[in-house]
């Protein structure tokens, strides 16, 4: 039986055709122990105010589309239990560091461009014919990159990263981690095609190892570690190529 507990949800609103700057709106919704923040937002949209806009899809932490700031922290709203905040009120805002399109919806263009720039797919100098079968990989080779392949492009790491906040050209945690994921893949031969992006001024060298990206990542990708590994590898290769210019360049 419901005991009619309620919780206040304050949401940032921005309707560009109506207002010049974002405002906020508070809704009071029923509190349910098994609800996540996204459930409360859907309840608002379905029963209180159909004009509220936000993105979501899977409701199970795999699509990466429901990332928002919940009480100031970047969170997947489908994984943020309401009971962790109750009885305090919950503030929901769009992910910071991105332009707002409408209400809780942000413009992801910048991230998409950066993602494309690191070529997050397997690159082969030459594809072998299908008749020769698949590219095989040992469990150890899989282990090398598996963690970095778990990214769901939710962009929480970009919202958490103070460097990205200051320096919008920074390629950023997820894109670098994904480039690194393919560089580590035994089937891939594309490191040269990614290096000029990943090891650019706007790439790994912009990172000062704050580590917030890894703290907020819901998939434990640890993008900070990916960046650190890439810095070490790039530096080692650079010194090697200075000492042994005739050696193999990577």
């Amino acid at each position, binding site marked *: 039986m419901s005991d009619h507990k309620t919780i206040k949800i304050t949401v940032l609103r921005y309707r560009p055709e109506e207002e010049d700057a974002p405002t906020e709106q508070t809704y009071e919704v029923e509190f349910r122990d098994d609800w996540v923040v996204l459930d409360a937002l859907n309840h608002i949209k379905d029963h209180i105010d159909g004009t509220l806009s936000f993105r979501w899809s899977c409701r199970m932490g795999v699509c990466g589309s429901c990332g928002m700031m919940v009480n100031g922290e970047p969170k997947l709203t489908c994984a943020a239990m309401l009971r962790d905040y109750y009885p305090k009120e919950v503030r929901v805002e769009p992910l910071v560091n991105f332009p707002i399109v409408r209400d809780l919806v942000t413009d992801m263009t910048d991230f998409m*461009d950066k993602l494309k*720039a690191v070529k997050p797919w397997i690159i082969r100098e030459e594809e072998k014919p299908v008749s020769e079968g698949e590219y095989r990989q040992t469990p150890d080779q899989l282990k090398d990159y598996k963690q970095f392949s778990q990214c769901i492009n939710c962009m929480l790491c970009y919202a958490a990263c*103070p*460097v990205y906040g*200051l320096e919008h*050209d920074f*390629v950023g945690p997820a894109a670098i981690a994904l480039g690194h994921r393919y560089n580590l893949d035994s089937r891939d031969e594309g490191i040269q095609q990614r*290096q*000029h*992006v990943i*090891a*650019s*001024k*706007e*790439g790994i*060298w912009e990172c*000062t190892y704050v580590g917030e990206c890894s703290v907020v990542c819901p998939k434990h990708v640890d993008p900070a570690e990916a960046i650190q590994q890439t*810095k*070490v590898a*790039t*530096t080692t*290769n*650079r*010194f090697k190529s200075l000492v042994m210019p005739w050696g193999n360049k990577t």
Partner: protein
Amino acid sequence: MNYKEHKSEPFWWGMFSQGGVIAALLIPIHIFLGGIAVHLGLIDAELMSHERLTGLLQNPLVKLYLCVLLIFTLYHAAHRIRFTLAEIGLHSLAKVLPFLCYGGALVGTAVVLYILWVLF
């Protein structure tokens, strides 16, 4: 966006990270020995006397050790200061900060070498 591999940054970062290891591992030992242990009477003050320490400097291995200790940490500091200044708002100086910071470290390197090899 036109990306270009940054060729000099690995060098500065390499010095920064080596300097970081040295700063974290060795500097506290020196602070403890010279700054705390002597004053607490844990080691004989005579052992850390000026004459004895400058005497140690005649040994080239000691000079080499001090070079590594001081020079790498200078580059560590330079790199940190460069990024800290840029991030606390001196963004417009981002282009000159590397010259100022690493330039400072280079001057520091010259001073260290001068003291160790010319003065002693």
